[in-house]
């Protein structure tokens, strides 16, 4: 079986099983390296397709070698030091120690099983393949997608994904609603000219709303992530920093918004799907209980509804007392 792999941002291969084993032993192919072979639906980190207990190609690290928890490469055990219970090679040691002094925790070191989604590797996979694989995995297999999603590494990649695709979905939704509104206006003479707005002003507003579809979604996702992260903290489920919440929501919203490309039905399906993807995304990225994630998403509406019932109960009680 032939394999393809990513190296320095380029696609390499095909290589045979034994050649892949050599590349792994040399440290060229790491557990985090994206690989692909026939039968795989998308580019996948090596660690996902070759587990330690059942290596596909028969690869086992040389006796006496230890894997660095920071870079993933194998070294002689004597060349690896223990820092806070993690194996760190001599090359990574200065950066790890510096990070610790600056407040980074060792739990944030790269997790070989968290290397997705494909959008994080679009330089290698190409824009369309990375987009297709990301959207497909988040919509069809959200549990797997968010279990393998990176929880660190910055916010620029999820930001651009969210800006492009959630913005695109919003624009399509806005255009469909505008067309619907225009057709209703043309059918109903009473509505024609009801706004009394000059054509120039209406045009400026239209352009503003198109631009705001992109800018607003980018700003909105940051704010929504902040609110949900605080809710998750209140529910005791925020086990990772704000970045993880933002990543889950940005990739989730960007993927689900593309459902708006299917007029009417897609937009209707996007509402429940968005909730499902958000709840699963939060629980998998924070590695917390699903019920905590669901509670965090619905905390604000739940508090409002409970308080509303109390207020209405009091108002009803006061009104009944007044009648007596």
């Amino acid at each position, binding site marked *: 079986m032939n394999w393809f792999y990513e190296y320095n941002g380029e696609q390499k291969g095909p290589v045979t099983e034994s050649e892949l084993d050599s590349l792994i032993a040399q440290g060229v192919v790491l557990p985090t390296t994206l690989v692909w072979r026939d039968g795989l639906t998308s580019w996948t980190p090596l660690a996902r397709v070759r587990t330690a207990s059942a290596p596909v190609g028969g690869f086992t690290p040389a006796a006496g070698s230890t894997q660095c928890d920071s870079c993933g490469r194998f070294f002689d055990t004597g060349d690896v030091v223990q820092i806070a219970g993690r194996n760190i090679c001599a090359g990574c040691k200065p950066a790890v120690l510096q990070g610790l002094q*600056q*407040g*980074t925790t060792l739990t944030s070191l790269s997790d070989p099983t968290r290397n997705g989604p494909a959008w994080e590797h679009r330089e290698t996979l190409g824009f369309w393949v990375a987009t297709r694989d990301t959207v497909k995995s988040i919509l069809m297999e959200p549990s797997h997608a968010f279990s393998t999603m990176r929880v660190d590494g910055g*916010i620029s990649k999820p930001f651009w994904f969210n800006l492009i695709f959630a913005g695109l979905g919003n624009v399509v939704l806005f255009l469909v609603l505008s067309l619907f509104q225009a057709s209703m206006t043309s059918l109903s003479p009473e509505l024609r000219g009801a706004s009394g707005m000059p054509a120039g002003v209406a045009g400026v507003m239209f352009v503003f709303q198109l631009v705001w579809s992109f800018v607003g979604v980018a700003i909105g996702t*940051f704010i929504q992530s902040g609110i949900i992260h605080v809710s998750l903290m209140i529910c005791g489920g925020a086990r990772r920093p704000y*970045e993880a919440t933002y990543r889950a929501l940005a990739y989730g919203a960007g993927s689900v918004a593309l459902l708006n490309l299917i007029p009417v039905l897609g937009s209707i399906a996007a509402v429940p799907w968005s909730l499902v993807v958000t709840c699963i995304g939060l629980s998998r990225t924070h590695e917390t209980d699903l019920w905590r994630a669901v509670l965090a998403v619905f905390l604000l509406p739940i508090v409002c509804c409970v308080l509303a019932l109390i207020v209405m109960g009091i108002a009803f009680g006061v009104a009944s007392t007044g009648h007596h």
Partner: protein
Amino acid sequence: MSAALLERRRPAAGEIDHERLWLAVGGSAVLGLALAARLGLRPPPCLFHLATGYPCPGCGSTRAMLQLAHGNFSAALAFNPLITVAALCALAWGLYAAAVLVLRLPRLRVSEVSRRGALGLRLGLLAAVVANWWWVIAHHL
């Protein structure tokens, strides 16, 4: 033992710079909303108010913000006290964020929150929302 410990430190490599991020997000949101208001775009009506006839905890926010923008602090408080106080806190935080970014100062971070502190924060937040809603209902009905 204090409820929460604050520390001053510089962001670690790869860590989100919250001061830069939220200053950019807040600034863009204020600019966008100001432009929308200038173009005559209005926020959608409150669905909760439409459905129940009672104002929601956020009702009066737009009017409070407009009053605050004109410097009418007491009028803003009357429309929605919690949103007004939150907006003033956000403004103060924005000034702090701008200062640490310009002067390249270490950032303030919460390093530890005790269990009692966390419980107190949760209850305090809930009490603030309830009290604010009580006020909004009393002044709108």
